[in-house]
């Protein structure tokens, strides 16, 4: 896998921001409005002067009108934690390009957008458990480390989103934007994992990576299906009737996922690997109100 973005595309990415429906507390000064009041430029509020406050922040015009000493409060602009969860289970090897390649490209692009706006971005890979992660990084200078990390990923193992997310929540307490990039073919279901993220008040966003073969398997006749993750086998006489039934099940799977996201106000974008990657980032993500 080679991660390479041309300069024009990178310039377009720099104009984009990762949108969050919530305001999170950051650690460092940055471009995001935080709940803290501090030394920012945007006026936020007044409060009564108290002993020890900085005289420079007293609003003398208000004192003239109201005859009270009021202190001017400013919004503190801080960074925002962004967590990119990349599914590296065996099922992500499917497709051309593979779903993992596509997921890595998406993650790299989102990562670059976050780093360009001084957000703290961390990439976490998961399969049946949390597999690998990068430290939270800030600044565009970190992008090549992120690229190196993404390029080293190989699809392997089973899928268990719930276990992976629970492990993440137990280790990282700071809330932020959680972007889950996966094909969501999880035998144990996706709801438990996503509920955990919601419980810890992360702003959750799903990137559903699919391939045409997921929807319309290019097989026919008497075959032995082998599960790429578990190795389980089923002998199937794949008839048009059966294929139609599968396609119905596939659409129901998509509908269920979308319905879940809609119910809990979770962002959802489906990205077929056959569609151009740049279009997905520049158009689909914006339409999904994940980027602006």
């Amino acid at each position: 896998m080679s991660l390479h973005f041309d300069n024009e595309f990178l310039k377009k990415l720099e104009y984009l921001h990762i949108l969050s429906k919530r305001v999170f507390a950051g650690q460092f000064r940055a471009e995001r409005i935080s709940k803290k009041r501090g030394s920012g430029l945007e006026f936020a509020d007044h409060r009564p002067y108290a002993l020890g406050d900085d005289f420079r922040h007293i609003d003398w015009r208000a004192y003239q009108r109201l005859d009270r000493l009021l202190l001017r409060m400013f919004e503190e602009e801080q960074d925002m934690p962004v967590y990119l969860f990349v599914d590296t289970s065996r099922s992500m090897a499917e497709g051309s390009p593979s779903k993992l390649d596509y997921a890595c490209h998406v993650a790299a692009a989102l990562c670059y957008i976050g780093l360009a706006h001084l957000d703290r971005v961390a990439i976490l890979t998961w399969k049946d458990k949390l597999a690998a992660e990068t430290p939270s990084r800030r600044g565009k200078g970190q992008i090549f480390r992120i690229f190196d990390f993404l390029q080293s990923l190989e699809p392997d193992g089973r899928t268990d989103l719930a276990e992976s997310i629970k492990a993440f929540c137990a280790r990282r307490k700071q809330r932020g934007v959680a972007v889950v990039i996966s094909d969501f073919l999880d035998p144990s279901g996706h709801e438990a994992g996503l509920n955990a993220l919601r419980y810890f008040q992360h702003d959750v966003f799903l990137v559903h990576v699919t391939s045409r073969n997921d929807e319309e398997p290019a097989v026919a006749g008497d075959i032995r299906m082998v599960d790429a993750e578990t190795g389980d086998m089923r002998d199937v006489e794949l008839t048009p009737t059966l294929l139609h039934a599968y396609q119905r099940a596939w659409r129901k799977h998509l509908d269920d996922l979308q319905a879940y996201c809609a119910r809990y106000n979770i962002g959802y974008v489906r990205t077929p690997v056959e569609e151009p990657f740049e279009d997905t980032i520049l158009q689909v993500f914006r339409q999904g109100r994940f980027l602006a």
Partner: protein
Amino acid sequence: MIFGALSGWLVAGLAAGAVAAASAIFFMKVRHPRVLVPSLLLWRRVLDEDRDVSFWEKVRKAVSYAIAVLVPLLIVLALGRPERAGAGGVAGPLTIVIDSSLSMLAERPDGRMRWEAATARALALAGDDEVTILTTADGIVGGPTSDRETLRQALEEVAPSEPGPFPANVGLQNGQTIFITDGVARYDVPADVRVESVFSAADNAAITAFDIRRDFSNAGRYEAYVEIANYAEAPRAVTLIVDVGSRRIYEQQVQLAADEIVRQSLPFEAGDGGVVRARLDGADDALAADDEAFAWVASARPDAVTLVTRRNPPLEELLAIDAAVTVTRIEPEQYRESGDGLVIFDRWAPQSAPRRPAILLAPPPVPWLGLAGAAERNATWSRADATHTAVRGIDGRTLRIDEAGDYALEGWTPLAFSGNGTPLVAVRESGGVSYALVTFDLTRGNIANDPAFPVLVGDLLAWFEGEAPVRVVAPGAVRLPSDVSELRRHGARAGSIGLRRLGDVTIADLREPGVYVAERPAGQLAIAVNAGTRAGSNVRATSLASGDVDAAPRATSGLWMWLVAFALVVFAAEFYTWNRRITV
């Protein structure tokens, strides 16, 4: 249903085998190809749920199995060339006569031989009543019976060989008589016999005549006479090849115009003699049997001949030009008993039988060879034993014999007779010495000027040198001298041939072209069997009227083609629907 190409039992066996093989292949557990899918998550939901099964899904397996069995079954049935039993059958007793001339071996446009079409037609004609089948060469070959299988087996035992005569009295029997022929050979067919034709015009090139004769002016040299005909509308180029034993003496391309007959005379060295085989290469025609012909070259003749005569200019001149012999003429007074070689006594004979081979030409009465009666005046050459070397090939119809002596021929074998039964030529073997007697004077009458004269002298000399006589015959039953003890086929397919002895007659059934050698006490007799004749090889012409042409061969060939076509359609439909999953 009856089958024209295979027996019913064989078809049944093949069909059972085909069904068993198709079933075994159909139910064979084939390991399914492995297909890696990202997850069985959704597939499990689909496979484990109760789905509505369509009608085709329910019957698909049964339909597939039926097709898998039906296709090979149809092909097996087609191979058997089926016909509907009794479809063309004739009610009442039926006599079927099949032309068994060699032209029935000619190939038809449908790929079958005329003979095959005729036998298939005969079986199709057989109704539920008794049928008798005859061929012109073999007479009754099957029946009377109503069992078609018996008739079919009987027909498998016979093959075309010779025209033969149309069987006598068949038209007088009860019921109908049908004659199946191609009309190439002409038969005297009774008026009440229905004629059905299997004729369809076919191009053919053939060797219509082939024979060998000695070149009297060159010792050891022979001439082969070959006649090639092209019975076709288009010109044709063939290669004529003539071999003597394993030695090739001639190979040349011959351009033949349409309906052209080319005759060639090919001189050659006899060498050690043996089988002479002429063949046409590249003929690619309807009838292969007449593309080759055979002859036999006798061993070379030796030399020393003593002619004891006062004076016989015609004989002296004839012997002088035969380079194969060295002639010494002496007066009767000079004759001594000692000496080697053959001696010819012309109108003189010694008082005691000579101790070396001798030809006696109109000898005077002597103690060992006396007269029995008065001589016959103005005798005619009436008949001769054509199988004997000493008188072979003599056409005596123009011979004028002034006087033929009536000798006491006890111990002699007369070979040729006058119209009144007076022996004209006789031979005798006594004490290991051979004698030949000609009872008439060669210098009188027109004998010296008649074509039979050099042939007679040549035959007598050949007999003394032990040459095997040669007969050239057409395939079929050949009548042989009664003293033939054994008959063998010569060449690559050598083998003994059975002889039928009917009183004084010995008959051999020589159906295949080639050279056959008969063993006789008097020496060998070579028989060259050649198929090609001008009349029999012209398979493009028929003597039948167009109204005699019957549609039966086409009808018999139709069903098997329909079966094959149906099998192909079923197979194609199965292949198409299976690949596209239309019917599942």
